């Protein structure tokens, strides 16, 4: 966990590996999994897993690139900082596994830091090169009088076009955000949704082929968030 990396003296008494839903890693893994949640030690993955199970669907949390290779769908979540996340992604081979999943045209969902780390670069931690699956950068919000950073709370998400994961959800519904950096796309056509904070309008959902990523936490956004998650878990990767 990133929490432990940032603060090594904190030793958890509740080990996440004891959770039955964490797939046993290892070379013997060959079974297909419907949804793999990528555990790259970037904060709490339990919420995403809980939400999928609440929907009556199956998922596993994994650190093993081979499990991701055998997954039908991949969720790339994360709460944390860009540099620590990238270090783990590069060292573990998980970054490449996510890129391979996109190349193989599997549905891939990035959430929060997972929506920034798919870009080429992040301004966080003095500047970090990221995966570069989508062209663009994660930049910090500009300061404005009275504007609080991080952007935390419920804000409207305006759909740029009817992406399949938005099905059944009203345009401009509120979703839950917690972030200080936001995506800036080189190619604005890759924005799936926009949100305005203060005077700053940013792409709050991105897409390219079978990859879709949300800056907001759909696992913490009540009914509309669960609807998006359900749509993703049923999505065949086609855009229309």
């Amino acid at each position, binding site marked *: *966990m990133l*929490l432990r990396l*940032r*603060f090594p*003296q*904190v*030793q*958890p*008494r*509740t080990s*996440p590996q004891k959770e039955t839903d964490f797939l046993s890693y290892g070379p013997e893994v060959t079974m297909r999994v419907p949804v793999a949640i990528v555990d790259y030690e970037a904060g*709490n993955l*339990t*919420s995403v897993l*809980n*939400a999928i*199970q*609440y929907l009556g669907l199956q998922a596993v949390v994994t650190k093993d690139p081979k499990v991701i290779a055998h997954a039908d769908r991949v969720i790339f979540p994360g*709460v*944390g900082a860009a540099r620590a996340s990238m270090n783990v992604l590069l060292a573990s081979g998980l970054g490449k596994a996510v890129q391979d999943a996109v190349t193989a045209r599997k549905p891939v969902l990035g959430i929060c830091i997972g929506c920034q780390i798919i870009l080429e670069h992040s301004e966080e931690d003095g500047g970090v090169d990221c995966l570069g699956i989508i062209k663009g950068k994660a930049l910090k919000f500009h300061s404005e009088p009275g504007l*609080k950073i*991080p*952007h*935390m*709370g*419920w*804000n*409207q998400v305006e759909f740029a076009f009817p992406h399949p994961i938005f099905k*059944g*959800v*009203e345009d401009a*519904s*509120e979703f*839950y955000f*917690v972030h200080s950096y936001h995506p800036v796309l080189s190619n604005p056509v890759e924005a799936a949704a926009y949100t*305005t*904070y203060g005077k700053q309008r940013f792409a709050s959902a991105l897409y390219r082929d079978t990859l879709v990523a949300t800056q907001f936490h759909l*696992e*913490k*956004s*009540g*009914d*509309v*968030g*669960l*609807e998006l998650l359900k749509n993703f878990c049923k999505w065949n990767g086609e855009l229309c």
Partner: protein
Amino acid sequence: MLTKRVIVCLDVRDRKVTKGIKFESNVDVGDPVEMGAQYSRDGADELVFYDITASAEKRAIDIEMVKDIAKNVFIPFSVGGGVRNLEDMYDVLLAGAEKVSINSLAVLNPQIITDGAKAFGNQCMVLGLDAKFVGISEKFPSGYEVVIQGGRKPMGIDAVAWARRAEGLGIGEICLNSIDADGMREGYELSITELIANAVMVPVIASGGAGTPAHINTLFAKTHADAALVASMVHFGTYSIAQIKAEMALAGLPVRRVGVSK
């Protein structure tokens, strides 16, 4: 536009939600997991669970309860009461809570704010600040003093000075509870809320005194609070979250709409 949040507070004792007047004469009102899930479905923007006896009994928060809540609640929630150290914070966050709320621990050991913010990020750290009106004096320029243990123990610190200091130490949010207004259902204490909201840049949650939706509208009209905490007015069924949201929308406040999917 960021919406004004309505946060439901659930005081938990022996795994039952309880509600008292001025921290005394509590009555049990239901199961925390069921109530949390129901408020989440009804459109609450956030939940706060306080294990109100953990602190007094010097025991850890009921982590199994936090895990059960996380399996049924898909909006942000924070947990407080009985957080003793960084390990307790870690357990609470790993169990699925979005934030940890600390109150007396922070007053007695302010360094824990910085340590927690460094380890988990300041967005995870909520300061519970209980303030009591004592009159303006040299020692209390705001007229409000920080108290702990449900108002029983005055700490000799000015409430606004403490809020500023906690912000400097890395707190991400302040939940300001007026001991004088708490449980009275006569409205939030606006003066201290506005003093603190103007003194810090982090979001301020007003707590204590909500009895009607009009109290919430008044809070947001007269202060710069970011969120309103409610408890008895919804626990006893007097008002629903939907009613509160509807009144807020009528007053022109930015609110998260409820039940717009499909």
